C-alpha cells in the first residue's frame, strides 16, 4: 500500500489483479488511470490529511489484511469517524503542515545524479523547497563515499543516500559510527539488471558463472538485490561471479569497454546503456521485489536535533515532492525539469523512459510498466530489518545484531511519531510490514530465522 493511497478503501487489493496492483482488474486499472489523468491536482491539505491518515491507519493495522477486515466490517465512513474520535486527524494534519520558523533557511542538500534522487532534485526547480520557506541548494556529488563524508562533515545538511547507507553509517560500517536518520524513502523500484548486448542469449542466471558485474556501492540495495537474485539461481555471488563497486556514471563506459558483463544499477544509468546501444534490460528490480526501497533522504541526528524546524520543513518538501512525483501524469514535466546540466545532466528521452515506464528494452522491443519507478516516502522499519539481514547474510555485519533497535533508531517515521506524541498519544511501537522477495516471504519479527534460511551465504 502506498502512502498516497486511500487508506479507508477496504477493497484496495493487496496483490494480483492489475499491473500496478492497486485495482481489482485490469479494466478497472485502465479506467482509473484514465480518470487520474484529468483529475485536478488535489489540494495540499488534502494530501497531508491523506498522508497522516495513512500513517495512523498503518500504525493501528500494520497488516493490510487486518485493516481490510476492519474496514469491511464497520465501513469506511464509520472507521474514519471512529478514528477521528480519538485521533483528531484534522488537527494532526494542521500540525504536520504547520511551519515553525526554520532555524536555518539556507540549506545544502547533496545528491547523486540518478533518477532515484528525483524528489530531492525536482523540489528545487519546481519550487517545493521554496514553498516550505527554505532556500535549498542541491549539490551534485561525485560518489557515495564522497556524499557520506560531506554529510558527516556537515558540508551538507541532508543528503540523498542509498537506503542501507544511513544504517551502515549509524553502525559504523565503513565509516565512523555517527547516528543518522531516514525521515523519508526517495523511490521504490526503479533499478534494473542490464547485460551487455553480446549476452542476449544468456538470459538464464545459471549460465552466468564467471561473469563480472558492477554494483554502485557495497552498502546498497543493488548489492543485496543482485546477490539475492544470483543466490536464488544457485550462483554464489562471492565465488562464482565477480562483483565490483563502480560509480554509476562509469558503468556504461565500462560496459562499452567490455570491462564488465552487466550491472545492477540505478536508473537512468540502465536506460542510458540501452540508449547508447551497449546493453539490454534483463530484468527490472521490480521483478525481484516489487516495492523495494532504493534510495533514502538522510540527515544526521545532530542536524535533526539542532534544527528541528528546518528538518521538518525539509521533510515536508520531500514528502510533497514525492507525492507529486508519484502521479503518473506529472512525470513528463518532472523529466524535463531534472534533465538539464545543473541537475541530472542526461537526455530528456532517457529520463522520460525511466519515469513514464514506456521504454526501449535494448532488444528491439518497447515495454510499458508504469511502476518501473515509483515514489513513496514512508520509511518502513521492516525495510531496514531486511537490509540488516542481508548485511548479516553477506558478512558485512559480524556477530549479533539488534535488528529492531537499529531499524527504529535509523528509520524514523519521524514526523508521524513526533505528531502523535504532541497529540498526547503514544506512538505506535512498530512500522513493520511483511513482504515477499522473489516469492519468499519475509517476516520482520524473525530476522535470524530468515538469515538462517538461506543456503547460499557467507559462512560466518
Amino acid at each position, binding site marked *: 500500500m502506498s502512502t498516497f493511497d486511500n487508506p479507508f478503501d477496504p477493497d484496495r487489493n493487496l496483490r494480483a489483479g492489475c499491473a500496478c496492483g492497486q485495482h481489482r482488474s485490469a479494466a478497472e486499472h485502465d479506467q482509473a488511470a484514465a480518470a487520474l489523468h484529468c483529475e485536478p491536482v488535489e489540494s495540499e491539505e488534502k494530501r497531508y490529511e491523506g498522508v497522516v491518515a495513512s500513517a495512523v491507519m498503518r500504525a493501528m493495522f500494520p497488516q493490510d489484511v487486518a485493516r481490510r477486515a476492519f474496514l469491511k466490517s464497520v465501513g469506511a465512513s464509520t472507521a474514519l469517524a471512529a478514528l477521528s474520535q480519538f485521533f483528531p486527524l484534522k488537527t494532526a494534519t494542521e500540525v504536520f503542515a504547520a511551519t515553525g520558523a526554520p532555524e536555518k533557511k539556507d540549506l545544502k542538500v547533496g545528491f547523486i545524479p540518478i533518477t532515484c534522487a528525483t524528489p530531492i532534485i525536482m523540489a528545487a526547480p519546481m519550487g517545493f523547497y521554496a514553498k516550505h520557506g527554505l532556500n535549498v541548494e542541491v549539490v551534485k556529488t561525485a560518489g557515495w563515499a564522497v556524499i557520506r*563524508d560531506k554529510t558527516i562533515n556537515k558540508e551538507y545538511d541532508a543528503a540523498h543516500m542509498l537506503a542501507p547507507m544511513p544504517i551502515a553509517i549509524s553502525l559504523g560500517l565503513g565509516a565512523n559510527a555517527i547516528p543518522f536518520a531516514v525521515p523519508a524513502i526517495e523511490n521504490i523500484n526503479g533499478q534494473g539488471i542490464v547485460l551487455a548486448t553480446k549476452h542476449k542469449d544468456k538470459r538464464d542466471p545459471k549460465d552466468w558463472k564467471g561473469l563480472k558485474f558492477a554494483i554502485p556501492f557495497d552498502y546498497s540495495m543493488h548489492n543485496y538485490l543482485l546477490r539475492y537474485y544470483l543466490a536464488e539461481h544457485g550462483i554464489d555471488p562471492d565465488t562464482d561471479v565477480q562483483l565490483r563497486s563502480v560509480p554509476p*556514471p562509469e558503468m556504461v563506459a565500462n560496459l562499452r569497454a567490455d570491462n564488465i558483463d552487466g550491472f545492477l544499477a540505478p536508473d537512468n544509468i540502465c536506460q542510458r546503456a540501452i540508449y547508447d546501444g551497449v546493453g539490454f534490460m534483463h530484468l527490472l528490480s521490480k521483478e525481484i521485489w516489487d516495492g523495494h526501497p532504493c534510495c533514502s533522504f538522510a540527515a544526521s541526528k545532530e542536524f535533526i536535533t539542532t534544527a528541528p524546524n528546518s528538518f521538518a520543513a525539509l521533510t515536508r518538501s520531500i514528502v510533497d515532492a514525492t507525492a507529486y512525483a508519484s502521479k503518473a501524469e506529472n512525470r513528463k514535466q518532472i523529466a524535463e525539469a531534472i534533465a538539464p546540466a545543473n541537475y541530472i545532466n542526461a537526455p530528456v528521452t532517457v529520463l522520460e523512459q525511466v519515469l513514464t515506464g514506456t521504454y526501449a528494452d535494448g532488444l528491439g522491443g518497447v515495454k510499458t510498466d508504469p511502476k518501473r519507478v515509483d515514489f513513496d516516502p514512508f520509511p518502513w522499519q521492516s525495510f531496514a530489518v531486511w537490509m540488516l539481514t542481508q548485511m548479516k547474510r553477506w558478512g558485512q555485519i559480524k556477530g549479533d545484531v539488534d535488528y529492531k533497535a537499529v531499524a527504529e533508531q535509523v528509520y524514523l517515521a519521524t514526523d508521524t511519531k513526533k505528531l502523535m506524541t504532541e497529540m498526547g498519544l503514544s506512538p505506535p511501537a512498530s512500522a513493520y510490514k511483511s513482504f515477499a522477495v522473489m516469492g519468499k516471504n519475509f517476516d520482520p519479527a524473525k530476522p535470524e530465522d530468515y538469515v538462517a534460511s538461506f543456503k547460499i551465504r557467507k559462512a560466518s
Partner: protein
Amino acid sequence: MTSSLRLRAGLVSIVLLAAFLGVWHLATRSTAPVATMSPEYAKLMGLTATQGKSAMPGPLDVGAKLWEHVKRPFYDNGPNDKGLGIQLGYSIARVGTGYLLAVLVAIPLGFLIGMSPLLSKALDPFIQVLKPISPLAWMPLALYTIKDSSVSAIFVIFICSIWPMLLNTVFGVASVRKEWINVARTLEVGTVRRAFTVILPAAAPTILTGMRISIGIAWLVIVAAEMLVGGTGIGYFVWNEWNNLSITNVIIAILLIGVVGMLLDQILARFTRMVTFPE
C-alpha cells in the same frame, strides 16, 4: 637562418595538426551497421544505436561545441552548471592558493635544510617517501581529517606541489659554489645578508626550476581532486560531462586543461629566464 627554421617548424606543426584532424575526422565518420528497428523503438534510442554514429565525436562536433562554450564562458545556471570561464577560474584560484602556500613553506624550509648538511641527510628519506604519493591517495585522508572538501582540495595541491620545490631549493642552496661563500666570509658578511645577497641569487635558477615543475604538478592534481570532490572547477566539469557520456565536452575540457597548463608553465619559464645568470 633561424627565422627560416622557425618558419619551417611552424609549417610542419600545421601539417601535423591538419593530418591529425583529418585522420580523426575520417576515423569517426564511419558508420557501423545498424539493426533494423521499429520507428517507435528508434524514437527511444540514441543516435549511436539508430544511425550507427560513432560514439566518438569528430573534430567538427568538438569545434561547434567549443564555439558554443567560447561564446558564453561565464553563464551561471545554478550550483551545478556554470560556464567554462567560471570553472577555470575556480580551478586556477584553487591551484594558486595551494601552490602559493607550498611556495611559502618549501622555499624557506628548503633554505634551512640546504644550509645544513645534517638536516639535509636526515630529512631526505621522508621527502623521498612522501614525494611520489598520488593526489588521489591523499584525498580520502584529507577529507576525513580536514572535514571540508574545498580545503581538502587545496591541501592536496599543497602537499603534491611542495616536494619538487623543496628538493630543488635544497639542492640549489647546497650546491652554491664554495668560493663565493668563502669570499663572503672573508668580507665578513653576516649570515642573513649572506643568505640573501649570495646564496639566494646563486640558487634562484634551481629554485625557479623546482617551482616550474611544481606548477605543472599542481595543475595535474587539480583535475583529479575536483573530479573527486566535485562542486566547481574544470575537473568537476569533466566529471559532470562524463556522467552524461558527453565525450565532446570532455575533449574540450582536455584541450583547455592543456592550454591553461601551458600558459602557467610559460609564466614560470619567463621568471626562470629573469633570474638566470651566465657563469
